[in-house]
């Protein structure tokens, strides 16, 4: 869905000759890339397509006419008329000399090295037939003190082992960590041939992207403890898949052992339009949850007070019968459903059809963590979240604005993309949020607005834009619709100075190509419609989308798919029409969205729920979800991979197959449809959601689809509808609601994902647990000082609604009266502290003594 209106300036081309072959490339291309593009192979060790060239290893020598010395092709720009030879005698001799230098100190331990079979050095050495060494001294050895192993392996991170003897000092690990990820937990120490790679003093290599370091190490110096020594790479098969923990859908590859139903590792499958070949640790190690011993193996049914294993037939028949009974006695308005936006398109569409055709209700939703939802489908926020956004367009943007997002936690992939834009271009980057975030390290400036003043800040930006350029159309009309309507009071309320607002407005007015990202502080806010209205006004005033892109980014692997398939009570009119055409009807009732269903449950007016792959008891941002809400249900059926807080309350629990166990399609935040192939057969008795729903429908004698083909055709038809909603035709009212604040609760609580976890499932991935195994309270150094706490001390966090205890982690990022609590751990349920009716989650904290 690439809809960027800006066109790239024409690139100048240059033509050179490589090995008698004429090659034309854009100016600025390196000789190496020109050669690779023309299918001519040149070996490399230190070069990486997404990092700056450093010319360190010197293996990529080429001969260039008129240049007396050999040149490193990775750092030499191709110019017109250049004549390059990549395989001349002198090149071969030069390359061989480098190889000899590298091998001089490289242990020849290939048979015991885990990289064997996929090692660049091993391959090149074979290619050059070096079988004897002129180096007749003891090889350099980095001994690990206290470890009686001849391998000299050193653990430098929860998942990373380092063998410095094998390291060829290409610095790719250190460089990518710093350049691509903005992390400094690995470094090069000492100098010259005493140089060694190691973790930063006193630290572990444990950043959210750390697994990539292993992947790009050209030799076996860095290995994953996840994969090493388990299997030789030539005994594996690979399956292309995508990262379903992330809304970008980074492309990945699963490795499984031949003839065995087990995945052994994940690596990236570079897609330059999406991920540049970098994946998060969550994407890399997340597959482990598939093999967790905690997987649900068989359907469970509540018999008496206990859930007991039953056969599928019994469970399915029971669900069909109970739903039919409730429909008969109470009516289908009393049945609701929630499906996770991480499910595949087939499952999501089956769910929609099951709820609407089999049960006949519009009580369905996929928005599992939104606090308040608008009744009308064409709200300001739906406009904002339906806007097209193209990840790769970030690369060429000259202004990048990140609003209300803790980017590394919410959109790690886009964070890396902005870093790259900063490394290779000169965009102006602004990070604007109500608390300090790590991703602000890519920003030219970070602005912090007062808690709950998003819309005031955006109003201020509009007013500043008008002051900067009074000619902007409709300025007077806008001023009548917003309050406060003068720049200085807006500045005062939101705490960002009028000068700063003006400077920001100027960049937005002057930017040639803008990428404007709206994050969770807006999407998950109670008042997101008001904030979205302010953002619509801003776009109308300064015309951001006429010079780029602006969107509230989708958060889950298939959020856009769910939206496009109409998994909300009142879908886009085109979608509704398409579904009506396909099914010959559509439920009349208005239907309740997630929050509506909650309220109905609390009132005792919703009797049955069908939940697929979601855990609202633990994840829905409301303390009441934790308490009685679900107990009030007559009938609850939940399909999931694991037993969860929600399955615990269910009458029937069905084992769900994971995304690795069947072929599924997912729509990423750009609207790109991608496929995750089946890597392994479903484990135990688990089934994909679409199959479960088909079974229940069949048991109810209302078959969902006559064939898989019919299902696919229906999906095609629905996806063909555009769900992009037009911007409002006029300025919208933006009247900021009052912020509730009780002096007894002075600290703002932020709930989100730990950088090594997503939602509630990653607790089951052993490697991710090594990075972070339990909840913590991350607080600013000021608060730590104030409460006299250090890392590991227990604190009690208390809100009007609940309290919990967790150990402290003193933040390197947060400042002021803010604490962060991850929502990923079952023993510490963050949602017990919050109310869906609150704009800001205020808490107080106390040190727990003893």
């Amino acid at each position, binding site marked *: 869905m690439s809809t960027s209106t800006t066109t790239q300036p024409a690139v100048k081309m240059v033509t050179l000759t490589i090995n008698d072959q004429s090659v034309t490339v854009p100016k600025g291309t390196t000789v190496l890339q020109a050669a690779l593009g023309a299918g001519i192979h040149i070996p490399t060790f230190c070069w990486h397509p997404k990092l700056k060239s450093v010319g*360190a290893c010197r293996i990529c020598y080429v001969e260039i006419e008129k240049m007396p010395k050999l040149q490193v092709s990775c750092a030499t720009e191709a110019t017109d008329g250049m004549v390059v030879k990549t395989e001349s005698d002198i090149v071969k001799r030069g390359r061989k000399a480098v190889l000899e230098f590298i091998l*001089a100190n490289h242990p020849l331990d290939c048979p015991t090295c885990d990289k064997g079979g996929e090692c660049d050095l091993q391959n090149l050495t074979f290619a050059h037939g070096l079988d004897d060494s002129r180096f007749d001294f003891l090889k350099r050895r980095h001994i690990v003190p206290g470890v009686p192993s001849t391998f000299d392996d050193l653990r430098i991170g929860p998942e990373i082992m380092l063998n410095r003897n094998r390291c060829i000092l290409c610095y790719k690990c250190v460089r990518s960590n710093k350049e691509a990820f903005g992390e400094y937990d690995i470094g090069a120490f000492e100098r010259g041939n005493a140089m060694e790679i190691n973790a930063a003093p006193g630290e572990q290599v444990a950043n959210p992207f750390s697994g990539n370091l292993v992947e790009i190490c050209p030799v076996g110096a860095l290995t994953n403890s996840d994969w090493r020594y388990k299997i030789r790479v030539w005994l594996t098969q690979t399956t292309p898949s995508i990262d379903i923990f992330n809304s970008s859908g980074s492309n990945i590859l699963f490795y499984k052992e031949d003839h065995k139903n087990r995945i052994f590792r994940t690596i990236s499958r570079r897609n330059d339009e999406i991920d540049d070949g970098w994946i998060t640790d969550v994407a890399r190690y997340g597959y482990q949850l598939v093999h967790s011993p905690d997987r649900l193996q068989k359907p469970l049914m509540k018999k008496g007070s206990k859930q007991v294993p039953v056969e599928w037939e019994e469970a399915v028949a029971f669900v069909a019968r109970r739903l039919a009974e409730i429909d008969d006695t109470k009516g289908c308005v009393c049945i609701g459903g929630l499906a996770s936006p991480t499910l595949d398109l087939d499952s999501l569409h089956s769910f929609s059809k099951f709820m609407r055709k089999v049960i006949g209700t519009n009580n369905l939703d996929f928005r599992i963590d939104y606090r308040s939802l608008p009744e009308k489908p064409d709200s300001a926020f739906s406009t904002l979240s339906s806007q097209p956004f193209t990840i790769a367009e970030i690369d060429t943007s000259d202004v990048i604005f990140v609003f209300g997002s803790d980017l590394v936690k919410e959109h790690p992939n886009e964070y890396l993309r902005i870093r790259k834009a900063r490394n290779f271009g000169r965009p102006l980057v602004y990070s604007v949020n109500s608390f300090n975030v790590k991703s602000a390290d890519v920003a030219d400036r970070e602005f912090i607005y007062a808690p709950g003043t998003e819309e005031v800040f955006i109003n201020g930006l509009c007013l500043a834009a008008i002051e900067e350029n009074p000619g902007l159309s409709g300025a007077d009309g806008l001023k009548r619709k917003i309050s406060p309507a003068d720049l200085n009071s807006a500045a005062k309320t939101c705490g960002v100075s009028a000068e700063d607002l003006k400077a920001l407005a100027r960049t937005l007015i002057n930017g040639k190509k803008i990428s404007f990202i709206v994050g969770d502080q807006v999407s998950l806010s109670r008042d997101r419609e008001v904030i979205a209205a302010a953002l619509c006004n801003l776009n109308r005033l300064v015309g951001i989308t006429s010079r780029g892109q602006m969107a509230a980014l989708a958060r889950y692997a298939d959020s856009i798919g769910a939206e496009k398939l109409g998994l909300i009570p009142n879908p886009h009119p085109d979608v509704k029409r398409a579904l009506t055409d396909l099914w010959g009807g559509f439920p009349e009732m208005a239907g309740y969205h997630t929050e509506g269903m909650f309220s109905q449950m609390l009132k005792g007016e919703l009797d049955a729920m069908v939940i697929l792959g979601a855990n609202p008891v633990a994840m829905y941002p409301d303390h009441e979800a934790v308490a009685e809400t679900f107990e009030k249900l007559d009938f609850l059926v939940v399909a999931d991979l694991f037993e969860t807080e929600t399955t615990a309350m269910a009458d029937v629990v069905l084992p769900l197959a994971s995304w690795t166990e069947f072929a599924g399609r997912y729509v990423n935040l750009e609207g790109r449809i991608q496929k995750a192939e089946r890597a392994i057969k479903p484990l135990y008795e688990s089934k994909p959601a679409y199959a479960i729903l088909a079974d229940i429908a069949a048991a109810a004698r209302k078959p969902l689809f006559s064939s898989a083909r019919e299902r696919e055709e229906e999906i095609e038809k629905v996806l063909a509808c555009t769900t992009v909603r037009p911007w409002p035709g006029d300025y919208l009212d933006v009247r900021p609601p009052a912020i509730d604040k009780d002096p007894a609760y002075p600290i703002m609580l932020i709930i989100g994902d730990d950088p090594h976890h997503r939602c509630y499932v990653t607790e089951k991935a052993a490697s991710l647990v090594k990075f972070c195994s339990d909840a913590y309270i991350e607080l600013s150094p000021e608060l730590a000082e104030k409460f006299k706490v250090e890392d590991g001390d227990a604190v009690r966090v208390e809100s009007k609604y609940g309290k919990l205890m967790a150990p402290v982690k003193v933040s390197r990022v947060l400042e002021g009266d803010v604490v962060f609590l991850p929502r990923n751990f079952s023993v510490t349920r963050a949602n017990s502290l919050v109310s869906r009716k609150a704009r800001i989650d205020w808490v107080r904290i106390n040190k727990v003594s003893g």
Partner: protein
Amino acid sequence: MTFYSPVITNAAEVAGSDKLHLFRYVEDANQTKIETYESHGGYGTWRKVLTTKKPDDVIAEVKASGLRGRGGAGFPTGMKWGFIPKDSPKPRYLVCNADESEPGTCKDRVIMERDPHAMIEGMAIAAYAIGCHLMFVYIRGEFGHCIETVDKALQEAYAKGHLGKNVYGSGYDLDMIVHSGGGAYICGEETALLNSLEGEKGMSRIRPPFPAIEGLYACPTIVNNVETLTTVRHIMERGAQWYRTMGTEKSPGSKIFSVSGHVKRPGNYEVELGFSLKKLIYDPQYGNGILGDKKLKGVIPGGASTPFLTPDQINVGLDFESMTSVGSMLGSGAVIVFHEDTCIVWAILKLIHFFRHESCGKCTPCREGTGWLEQIIRRIEHGGGKPGDIEKIEDICGNILGRTICPLGDAAVMPIQSAVKHWRDEWQYHIDHGKCLVPTRFEFV
């Protein structure tokens, strides 16, 4: 008042000359004080340049003078300044390279210790020429006293309004920062210096981009040696024409040579370029001959990274072209003299040990090659040399030369190559007999 370090100079000769200029006041212990410096017309040139000349005029004058960099490579200074992009919106930086760590070189130190204001004045003029408002001096970490002296001079210059906001009411702001190095030879190499200044590990960067285009913080940057910048002050005081009356056509001006090793009178001497190497070693005013009146064995004329000259080659002018013509280089002007009792293997072992230790480790040939060379040379020196070792050394040197990111790799192998060429029989003797042909009769402590 005494000097921190008692270095022999030819200040008296310079004072008596109407041309030589760098060392004119270096024996005056009060010269570090701004009052003394000003009493000799100090900062007058800076004032004149800032208030009456355009930056391009300064560049043109320095170009006309033919001044070539004194840091080692001899690159024409005015031409380098001309590479600064005219239309870049980024700030420009000037960095004075005072990391002086090339073995044998100790000339910048004399300037900083004894005439720091001359350097600051030269820097200010150069900064103005390239449109820089913030300049740095990166001083070798071991030179604690230089750092103190320069820092004190800097405070004085600020106090007197030679630096700071709106200098001399011209509207031009100029600030200066003194930065202490961390003790690595490689940080004298300009790109490693810039990395170090940025707080990164001191490792060289590949060129292009050259610092003039993307240097400090990826902004246009000029790196010049202390002596170069100090000379700029004198050129702007007396003019390019005057400067060209010294030296040779292609190497105009004067330069400081640091004479060390087996001479009777080691010291720093300012002489015109083209001055006879032989005279510098033997003339009583300068080196005053070989220690113990022994025979000369060889000379490294331009710092540890330049090839050896043999006694028959020293009748040569100390200028860039003449040095190249005899197969060596002028380098930083550190003349290191070896007499007949020096075992060449021993001397080369010291050198390769230094370069192996100082290699930044970024590129493979230098990092691995220097280590390998040191091991081979060490075993030869200690009697364990093997047949074929000399050929291996030559081969390894060939695989390093011209194959590295920065010139340190070349610097490490050029003296070795020349030593093997000139004294091959000595190497062979060492391997065959397990001991020196020339017993070394002195020890380093």
